[in-house]
């Protein structure tokens, strides 16, 4: 007995932890939404390139576009241009699109559109740390100014991180003469970044310029400049003006390096304007889209991989264990008597088709009529099988009559008593009459009432849409249910109704 108990405990543990593990994996690793109506942001980024083409000269416009190895999933990417050839190539870890045309004239507009979403993105692939660098050579006064800045910075810093912060702080102090000299009177972020780069190169600290786009609905957004450096372990991001460390979540890296966003040959007055829009999309639909877009088998092996019709059937079927659980709790913990274990669940399923209120009315009416016929037939001393056959035939007639009457009265609902509920009803009446014969009318009334309560409860629970979605999406919870049921199999405590039944035993005397 002891070994069986340990066995059982281990089994429960395995079931519960396996179920939780699978569900947890789906929720936290695959990031499948917990609620059906959960939505995700979808960002659509438009970059519009305008320029005036120089007549008679081949046109070549090169625009940086975001690398795809980020923590976003690209849903769609398109290049829109008339009469231009398009090619995308890699350049120093960046991606660049090249539009080219033999000849063009007048104002030209080229579009680049990227649609992406954050959820379901893979971990971004870290780019390799840059190699150690040589100091950028400077002449006379600038070298002196740089040295004058670097020495106190070095004294006020402990490592690469603090060195960079300190440098950014000093470069943004425009009252400093040395800084003014190096900036050459142009305090733009880009120029500041150049000076910071210059100073850091003297300290042999690598630095990269990162041009980012904020993911928020806006038009005419300018790319925001960030600096990043590698401390040997990871990339550190800094804002070149505020010195703020760490890049906010909503920044999308567009390109890195010193090169300008747009390079134009055979054209002039080139401008790039960004328009960013966001829309919401059902997270689950999105998940399916990303599964199609990427090779990851995110939902491939879930029930969503089934054909749609099969999915609908399974959405009903997978809730049956929940209904059974209700019956188990009602019977073994509360102590309500029901007609067998599965019958209440079947009635609950039948309620799906008739609606619960109507279902209860029909169930009560038909069962009462069927049973009263049965007790009448008892006087005739008929044998069991013929008597049951009569009852069942009568039930079919009752159902037909009810359907007919309610149709004439304009209540269409009763017509919904289709084949499935009818079979269940007749079966219930058969079983109830057997109970009546074995245990008497009072008992069978109690059982019928218990069955009705159990069926209603499990129907209500089985049709909660959130629960259906959850169990259907995370079938692992069924294993947790099995664990609970296993534990219930060894439950030895009293049932709630037994506390009433044995109440006399608590009184003394």
């Amino acid at each position, binding site marked *: *007995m002891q070994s069986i108990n340990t066995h059982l405990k281990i089994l429960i543990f395995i079931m519960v932890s396996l179920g939780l593990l699978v569900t947890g994996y789906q929720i936290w690793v695959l990031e499948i939404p917990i609620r059906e109506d959960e939505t995700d942001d979808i960002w659509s980024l438009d970059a519009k390139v305008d320029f005036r083409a120089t007549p008679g000269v081949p046109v070549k416009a090169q625009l940086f576009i975001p690398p795809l190895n980020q923590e976003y999933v690209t849903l769609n990417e398109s290049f829109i241009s008339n009469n231009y050839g398009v090619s995308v190539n890699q350049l120093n870890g960046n991606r660049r699109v090249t539009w080219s045309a033999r000849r063009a004239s007048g104002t030209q507009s080229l579009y680049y559109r990227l649609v992406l979403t954050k959820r379901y993105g893979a971990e971004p692939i870290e780019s390799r740390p840059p190699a150690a660098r040589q100091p950028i050579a400077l002449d006379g006064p600038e070298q002196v100014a740089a040295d004058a800045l670097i020495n106190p910075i070095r004294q006020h810093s402990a490592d690469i991180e603090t060195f960079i912060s300190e440098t950014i702080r000093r470069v943004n102090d425009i009252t400093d003469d040395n800084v003014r000299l190096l900036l050459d009177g142009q305090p733009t972020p880009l120029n500041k970044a150049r000076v910071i780069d210059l100073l850091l190169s003297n300290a042999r600290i690598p630095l990269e310029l990162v041009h980012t786009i904020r993911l928020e609905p806006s038009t005419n957004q300018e790319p925001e400049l960030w600096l990043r450096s590698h401390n040997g372990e990871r990339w550190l991001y800094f804002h070149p003006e505020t010195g703020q460390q760490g890049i906010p979540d909503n920044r999308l890296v567009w390109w890195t390096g010193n090169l300008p966003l747009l390079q134009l040959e055979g054209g002039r007055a080139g401008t790039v304007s960004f328009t960013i829009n966001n829309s919401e999309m059902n997270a689950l639909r999105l998940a399916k889209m990303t599964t199609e877009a990427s090779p990851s088998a995110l939902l491939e092996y879930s029930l969503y991989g089934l054909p749609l019709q099969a999915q609908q059937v399974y959405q009903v079927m997978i809730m049956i264990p929940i209904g059974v659980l209700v019956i188990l709790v009602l019977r*073994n913990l509360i*102590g309500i008597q029901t007609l067998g274990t599965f019958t209440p669940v079947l009635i609950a399923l039948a309620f799906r088709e008739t609606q619960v209120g109507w279902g209860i009315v029909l169930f009560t009416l038909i069962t009462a009529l069927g049973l009263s016929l049965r007790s009448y037939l008892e006087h005739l*001393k008929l*044998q*069991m*099988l013929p008597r049951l056959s009569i009852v069942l035939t009568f039930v079919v007639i009752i159902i037909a009559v009810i359907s007919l009457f309610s149709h004439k009265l304009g209540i269409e609902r009763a017509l919904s008593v289709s084949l499935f509920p009818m079979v269940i009803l007749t079966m219930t009446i058969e079983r109830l009459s*057997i109970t009546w*014969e*074995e*245990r*008497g009318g009072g*008992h069978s009334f109690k059982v019928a009432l218990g069955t009705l309560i159990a069926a209603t409860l499990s129907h209500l629970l089985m049709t909660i849409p959130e629960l259906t979605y959850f169990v259907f999406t995370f079938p692992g919870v069924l294993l947790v249910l099995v664990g609970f049921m296993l534990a219930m*199999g*060894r*439950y*030895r*405590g*009293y*049932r*709630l109704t*037994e*506390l009433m*039944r*044995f*109440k*006399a*035993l*608590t*009184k*003394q*005397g």
Partner: protein
Amino acid sequence: MLFWKTWKALSEAGVMGINRRNADYVLKYNKRHLYPVVDDKILTKERAIAAQINVPDLYGIIDTEKDIGKFTQLVENHKDFVIKPAQGAGGDGILVIGDRYEGRYRTVSGKIISLEEIEHHISNILSGLYSLGGHRDRVLIEYRVKPDPIFKSISYEGVPDIRIIVLLGYPVMAMLRLPTRQSNGKANLHQGAIGVGVDLTTGITLKGTWLNNKISKHPDTANEVAGVQLPDWDGFMRLATSCYELSGLGYIGVDLVLDERKGPLILELNARPGLNIQIANDAGLTHRCHAVERHVAELKKAGRTETVEERMAFSQQHFGKPVFLSADEAPVEEPPVEPDTPAPDA
């Protein structure tokens, strides 16, 4: 909370609930494949006869429609007899014939019925009208038990029977079931019969239960049910104890009757005995069952088994009322004094 208080009180009193009965006793000690022995009264009877255990005499078995014609032949030499479905439950379908009257039959309740009616009844039994789940059944015709007159004062019609719960061959609790007007003369607690606890040591009745309440008087005869000495109590105990070997089931309810001529007889066995016996005895089953299980475990360690007599003695020594394991002397005491009487000395 109210429920919690009741729960604790019950659990302290060792009252057994259905869940515990099923998990710890029925499922643990009763092998499924042995159920037919107790579900089919004919099988039970055959086993009992083979083991020389007293049962009502078997007059005949009818198992096909064709054999219904043999009925008159089977009961030819008997003035009174009982017709029973072999797999009936709750006493349904039992026809008790007490006498003959002008070629017809008279039931014990005085109703005159014809041979055709009896044959129709037999046919109903065969078609499974009274069997669990409506399976085809067999008909048993046997000796009619005449209850000992001792029960006259505390019983209404019918035959009172005695239910003894036997765990691993050790009787743990006993109850006398008395038919009432409400139960239509049937000794079935669900149908309104009363259950009266019986002291295992002496065979003297205790107070009773009726519809889950404690009672002390029979509702129909208004006579006190407590304090009646059941005759040949050791005979009852011996029969019940030996049912363990007979059935092989570890947790059974044995139903016995007392015939005025033949003494204690076994009527039937039950593999899922009800729990109301606890109310009748005003005592819980759990502690007694644990005591038996401990005792059996000790015996197993010592590598020996006990005979029917030894097991009977163990039970009678330990499960008298009150349930003190030390009570060696016969606990023939006054029932507990009302708590609010000061009573320095009775």
